[in-house]
Structure formats: C-alpha cells, structure tokens
C-alpha cells in the first residue's frame, strides 16, 4: 500500500521525531566533523558503532536502519563525545532518544526489557535477594527501607512506561 510514499514521508519525519523527543533536540546542529567518533571508546574497538554515522543516518531519515539495528545499543553512555562536541550536539542524549523510539516501536534488547520489568516489579532494576536482606543485621547494616513501588507504578503509568513493557510481553 504505497510503501514508497510511506518511506518518503518517514524519511522527512524521522529527524523531526528525534528532534521533538527529550534528549534529541540538538541533532540538527551536527556538521559531521567526527570529533565524537574519535573520542568514542567503543568506536575504537569495533566498526559496528560510530556516533557520527548514526547521526548522519538519522538526519537522512534512515529510520529503519537506525532503530532496528544493533548500533544504537552499543553506546556505552560515557559522554566523552558530548563533552567534546564543538557544536554542542548532545550526542549521548540523542542515543537515548533513538533508543526510546526503538523501544516504543518494539525493538527491545532482552537486557533492557529485564531492567524495565524489574523496575515495575519492585522499584529496583537490580533485585535485592531475600538472602541479602536477611544478612544485613549480621553485617551491621540497618534494615532496608521499603521502596515506594506503588507511587512508582503511578508514575510509570502516567508516562506510558508500563505499556511499553506490556507491548513487549504480548508481541
């Protein structure tokens, strides 16, 4: 059904979609100098990740390639690129914006889906085992206070975060 037309409109709308998301606002300031890639510890050890390239592809509207691919998940969030960008492009934050779009469209790596589920379950992304909790007094540690998981679930529901998770579970 008019897939060529859909593709074209997607290519025009994708840069705008990134720009309008929290974290993605500065993407259009990029002039492709490559300071990010040369500051990136991951780009130094693999050809699969290059922040400059990901920004270029995003600005060209190559949405599918960007959000369905492996590359956006290879950023180690060290923020070296963002510190050094001469154009003040918030590159590490743009990676979050791209991941957020990927997540919304169902491209969800297992490890991130586990973090999201754990958060919904008991308010922590790494679960404290009953064993660790029981050991605390013998180690001289105070009891662990309860998490505000009920409040947290209200927040996650207000932002739609809980539905991101459900979509993954039913797909």
């Amino acid at each position, binding site marked *: 059904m008019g897939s060529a037309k859909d593709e074209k409109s997607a290519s025009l709308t994708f840069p705008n979609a990134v720009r309008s998301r929290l974290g993605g606002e500065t993407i259009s300031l990029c002039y492709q100098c490559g300071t990010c890639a040369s500051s990136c510890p991951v780009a130094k050890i693999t050809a699969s990740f290059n922040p400059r390239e990901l920004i270029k592809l995003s600005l060209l509207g190559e949405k599918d390639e960007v959000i369905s691919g492996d590359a956006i998940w290879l950023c180690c*969030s060290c923020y070296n690129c963002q510190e050094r960008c001469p154009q003040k492009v918030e590159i590490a934050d743009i990676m*979050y914006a791209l991941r957020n779009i990927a997540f919304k469209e169902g491209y969800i790596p297992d490890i991130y889906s586990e*973090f999201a589920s754990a958060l919904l379950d008991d308010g922590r*992304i790494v*679960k404290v085992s009953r064993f660790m909790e029981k050991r605390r007094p013998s180690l*001289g540690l105070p009891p662990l206070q309860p998490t505000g998981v009920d409040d947290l679930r209200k927040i996650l529901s*207000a932002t739609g975060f809980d539905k991101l998770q459900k979509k993954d579970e039913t797909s």
Partner: protein
Amino acid sequence: MTSYALFLGCTIPARQPNYELSARKALAKLGIKLVDLDNLTCCCPPPVQSVDLETSLAVAAYNICLAEEANLDLVTLCSGCFESLAMANVMLKSDGELKTKINGILGQAGKEFLGSKEVKHYLQVLMEDVGIDHLRKSVSKPLSGLKVAAFYGCHALRPSEHLKLDDPERPSILEKVIETLGAESVEYRNKLKCCGGLLRGYSDDLALELAREKLANTSKAGADCIATLCPFCFVALDIGQIQIRSQFNEAYDMPVLHYSELLALALGIDPEELELKTHKVKTDKVIGKIR
C-alpha cells in the same frame, strides 16, 4: 553534625555490602549522619534512560521530592545514581517548562518537585563538609607506600554541564582524596576512558575489551590496586578479571577497591568489619601493605 539522606540505589544493597559498609562506617567516623528514608526507588540511570528518558527524569525527581519532604540534601555513593539524580535536579531547576511537565506526572503520585535541595556525590561531602584538613587529621593508618590508580569512571564527571563535580578532562578530586590518606596516586594511560560496564549484558565482548585495557594500563603503571567510585566499574573490573582470565588467558590479579574502602581502612576501621570477601580478586596484598 551534618545530615544527609543516603541514596543507596539498587546495585549496592543487592551485591556490594563492601561498598555500603565502608561508606557508612567511614562517613559516620567523619561526623556525617546518614538518614535512610522510606520509599526511595531506583534512580533510573542510563539503562532506564535508554527505555524512556522522560520517565527516568520523573522517577529521579520523585526521589528528590522525598528528600525535599524530609528537608535533607541527598548524598549518593553510586555514580549511576549521582548522574541521574543530579542531572534531573539541575535540569528541572533550570527549565521551568520541563519542571511543569514533570510535575504534571508527579502529581499522579501526589508529589511536586520544588527544587529546594542538592544532590551530592560523597566526594563532594568529603571536600565541602568534612574538609581536606579534617580528613587528613582523621587518618590513623596512613596508606603509605600504597600505589593507587584512581579511576573516576564516567558518571561522576560527565555530563559535566549537569554534574559539576570536577573538570571532565582534567579532574583532580579523587587523586587529592587518595593522597590525603597517605597513598600515592599513580598516573596511567587513558585514565578517563570508560570501563565498558554499561555494555555488559548487551555486548560482553566489547565490555571486556574495554575493562581489559584498563587493567593492562593500571598494571603497567605499577599500581597496587585500582580505586573506584561506581559499583558498575567495580563489577566490570573485579568480576571482569575472572572473565578476562578465562576468555583471554590473561591474569592481572589487580585488586579493585572502592575509594570508600581505602578511606575506611585509613581511618582505622578493622578490615574484618568490611566484608572484603565480596571481592572476587583478593584484597590481601593491599591489606598486607597497610598492616
């Protein structure tokens, strides 16, 4: 006595009693009172920011609201917690539109972010509240002769626009507090480079490659141990060494200690009280040098 609400986070109570014990005991000894608040949740660090940045900001702000209600500033141990909470605090204080939006979400949980409190890294508490002179005077077992490779990790320093702990390219705070304990801070190549911690679980090979470089460089510089600030760096470099040994057949045998552990030892706290057996790489060599 200065009081702070302690933000413990997830990884420390789940996996690293060595971090929690050393930090609690050392800070108490230095006259800092830590208050454990009810209802704190995950701070929503980069792994959750990757899922949804707006939610992460709202949850971070929720936690700050609890400190505001208790009329206390927050202190963090974990760099992931520091990054997410300090970033949210600074962003919401400086952007009225964003604050209104996030408060709209927080209203569902009956909270409102006011922007009345600070989020501090415990190194800032050491520098600003304890003070370097008092810290020096409190050292009863100087770590003389111990060569320590300071490792900041990423999220104590960057994004510096929001965190403001130190210069992101030429920081000195960690070296300063290491040397105050009587130890020698050794320089090594690519000190500020990431340990790969956040790639663990998604791309273990890349994560180990980055950790391996850190271990090679600190070993080459003759360090007796690496001093970390972040529980993820600790995992990457400590448990990471076991994995590196089996995958690359390289044994570094490099003890990795949180700075708070070195601090507790220098303050004369008995190593037996610090649950040092949490470490996968034995700390005996370090303890031996101190005793």
